[in-house]
């Protein structure tokens, strides 16, 4: 092959750069919008938990059902990659929630919550579980797809536990700011800093 050492080095650099950018682009195309969507859902949901505790359950229900439907449509519309095994990730999320819901349903009758203070503590912990379960899914999914998901999952989990222990009365506001903020921030980071085209592409 009539290629000089210099040309070979340039070609290898070009391949490395294209592969690196492709991995990041393909992994999160569409996912950036979904991150932002769920960040907004968390902000609205946790704000409702703090300011509208009587109706927050219904607000969360509407937000989550709407969020799941919107996420499916957004990923179908904007995903970069079509994979025969893509259904496995959706199935994993579905089964995870099925298992958690099953145990919540089985354990709830044995929880004896007395008074407003215990009730508030119960809902704080329930909110923390609801926040960390999807974060666990982020970590597991990230082990296969992209390390960023692992760090987001672990980061939000730490923030959640920290808020649960330290900021008891303001836990829901803390979650709206840190949990929702982290998801929105990740979506914006992926969209504007990470998903960059290759440097040059002539010919």
């Amino acid at each position, binding site marked *: *092959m009539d290629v000089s050492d210099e040309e070979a080095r340039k070609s*290898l650099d070009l391949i490395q750069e*294209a592969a690196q950018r*492709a991995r990041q682009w*393909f992994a999160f195309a569409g996912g950036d919008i979904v991150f932002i969507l769920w960040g907004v859902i968390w902000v609205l949901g946790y704000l409702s938990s703090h300011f509208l505790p009587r109706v927050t359950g219904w607000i969360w229900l509407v937000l989550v059902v709407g969020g799941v439907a919107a996420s499916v449509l957004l990923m*179908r519309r904007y*995903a970069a990659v079509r994979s025969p095994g893509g259904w496995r990730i959706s199935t994993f999320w579905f089964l995870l929630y099925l298992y958690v819901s099953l145990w919540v349903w089985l354990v709830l009758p044995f929880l004896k919550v007395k008074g407003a203070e215990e009730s508030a503590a119960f809902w704080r912990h329930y909110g923390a579980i609801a926040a960390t379960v999807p974060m666990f899914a982020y970590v597991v999914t990230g082990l296969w797809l992209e390390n960023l998901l692992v760090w987001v999952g672990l980061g939000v989990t730490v923030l959640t536990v920290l808020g649960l222990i330290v900021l008891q009365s303001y836990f829901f506001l803390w979650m709206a700011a840190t949990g929702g903020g982290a998801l929105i921030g990740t979506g914006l980071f992926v969209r504007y800093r990470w998903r960059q085209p*290759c440097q040059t592409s002539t010919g």
Partner: protein
Amino acid sequence: MIHQPVRLRIMAALMTLGPKEQVDFTHLRDLLAATDGNLGAHLQRLDEAGYIAVEKTFVARKPRTWVKATGLGRDAFAGYLATLKRIVEGSV
């Protein structure tokens, strides 16, 4: 065939996916900062060589074009990559 910079980038990008995974044409175009016509022409060359497979579908009544590297294309890219490495290491 593969040594041309745009085609090399196309193959490098496709090689990050699994053998059965396909990438959307518009994402590939944006990733490579190419125009529709430019990318289309290079894909056609690769398709004619049997290095990629192109599939056209409709999603929500809108046409979408999906691209993937074939086994032949993967072998050709791997061979070219190995050759480049050997040149850099001084064994060619």
